[in-house]
């Protein structure tokens, strides 16, 4: 009786709201003493009191996966399904940060995409420290904005799989959201001006870092890239007329490319010179292989030089690659590729 969802509750994502939490984790919560003692007969008001007593967040921990009180309260909220106004109140309140995170988490699970972005993004400005319980039982330090970032970007948090969230970009395109405006925008603009005045220093660093920067810098990043793209394009133009490269990449002839890549051992030598960007590597290969007749004199000379230097090396470069992904046995090679992607060493034969 205590574990049934409120009969008046709506279906979330087409199912009983409690099903957002996986069966095994749910069972663990039902059997936990915190749930049985404290979460019995909670209403929205009494839930607030319990939430104020929280002092850490987390999912399950320990060998037998005990749930944290935070997780129990999340399930309770899913069970009683408070009104949206109440959840927004949770998020807006400033005094209790764990109540805030609780509300934010609940909204991420049950709210629409627009609501999620609208209410969670202001929380990026909250820099307070929070305590997080890891899965091995230890505590770790994190911050409210880090938690929010995890909620918005990852698809798994606190042992609950997050529902799919549309990308912000899509919502902006459809006009449902304004482009993100950060509180630090003014500071960034000042910094940009300073950078421009000093000359364009480290633009490449800027681009490499882009996955770490917050979304509102996308606009600036795009304009940077657009500004610099003509420079890159001229370089391409000199190397070869490579519309084919884009065609291949987009039409997904990846397998073919991989095979060709495996064959081209001499390419390894050029890795240092190339800065390890696959696209450029492929471009060079294709240039070497294909464009000998098409390329201009300067290009031909360059190719010949490189080829001559590579010939004596070719015999030596037949040896295997370090991560074993070009093992003759395709099964082993595939296993090694998987291992490399997981960050493990290759199989020892």
């Amino acid at each position, binding site marked *: 009786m205590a574990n049934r969802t409120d009969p008046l509750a709506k279906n979330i994502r087409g199912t009983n709201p409690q099903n957002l939490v996986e069966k095994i984790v749910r069972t663990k919560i039902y059997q936990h003493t915190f749930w049985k003692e404290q979460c019995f007969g909670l209403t929205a008001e009494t839930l607030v009191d319990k939430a104020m007593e929280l002092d850490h967040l987390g999912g399950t921990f320990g060998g037998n996966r005990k749930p944290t009180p935070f997780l129990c309260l999340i399930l309770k909220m899913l069970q009683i399904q408070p009104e949206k106004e109440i959840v927004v109140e949770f998020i807006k309140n400033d005094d209790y940060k764990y109540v805030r995170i609780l509300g934010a988490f609940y909204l991420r699970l049950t709210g629409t995409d627009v609501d999620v972005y609208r209410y969670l993004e202001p929380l990026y400005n909250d820099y307070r420290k929070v305590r997080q319980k890891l899965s091995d039982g230890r505590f770790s330090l994190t911050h409210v904005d880090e938690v929010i970032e995890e909620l918005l970007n990852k698809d798994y948090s606190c042992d609950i799989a997050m529902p799919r969230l549309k990308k912000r970009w899509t919502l902006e395109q459809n006009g449902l959201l304004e482009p993100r405006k950060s509180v630090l925008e003014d500071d960034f603009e000042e910094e940009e001006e300073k950078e421009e005045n000093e000359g364009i220093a480290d633009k490449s660093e800027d681009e490499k870092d882009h996955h770490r920067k917050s979304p509102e810098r996308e606009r600036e990043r795009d304009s940077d890239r657009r500004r610099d793209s003509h420079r890159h394009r001229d370089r391409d133009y000199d190397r070869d007329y490579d519309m084919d490269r884009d065609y291949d990449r987009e039409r997904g002839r990846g397998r073919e490319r991989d095979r060709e890549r495996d064959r081209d051992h001499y390419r390894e030598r050029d890795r240092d010179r190339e800065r390890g960007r696959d696209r450029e590597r492929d471009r060079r290969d294709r240039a070497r292989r294909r464009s000998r007749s098409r390329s201009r004199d300067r290009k031909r000379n360059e190719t010949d030089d490189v080829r001559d230097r590579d010939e004596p090396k070719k015999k030596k470069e037949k040896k295997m690659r370090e991560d074993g992904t070009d093992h003759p046995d395709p099964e*082993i090679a595939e296993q090694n590729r*998987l291992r490399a992607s*997981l960050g*493990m060493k290759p199989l020892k034969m």
Partner: protein
Amino acid sequence: MIEVVLNDRLGKKVRVKCNEDETIGDLKKLVAAQTGTRAENIRIQKWYNIYKDHITLKDYEIHDGMGLELYYN
């Protein structure tokens, strides 16, 4: 390189190739990649001995072809 068989008795039987000096945690990652569950949700046991993440297969004396039990957390 050894090959270990993991069976969850509910339909999932997985053969995983791994090195002897790898830990159970690595084995769980490989199993997760093959079955599609998350590595944190997997529990590997042999009867009532739950295998710990930080110990190597060699120390658990897991040999080639040995069968392990697959459970979920």
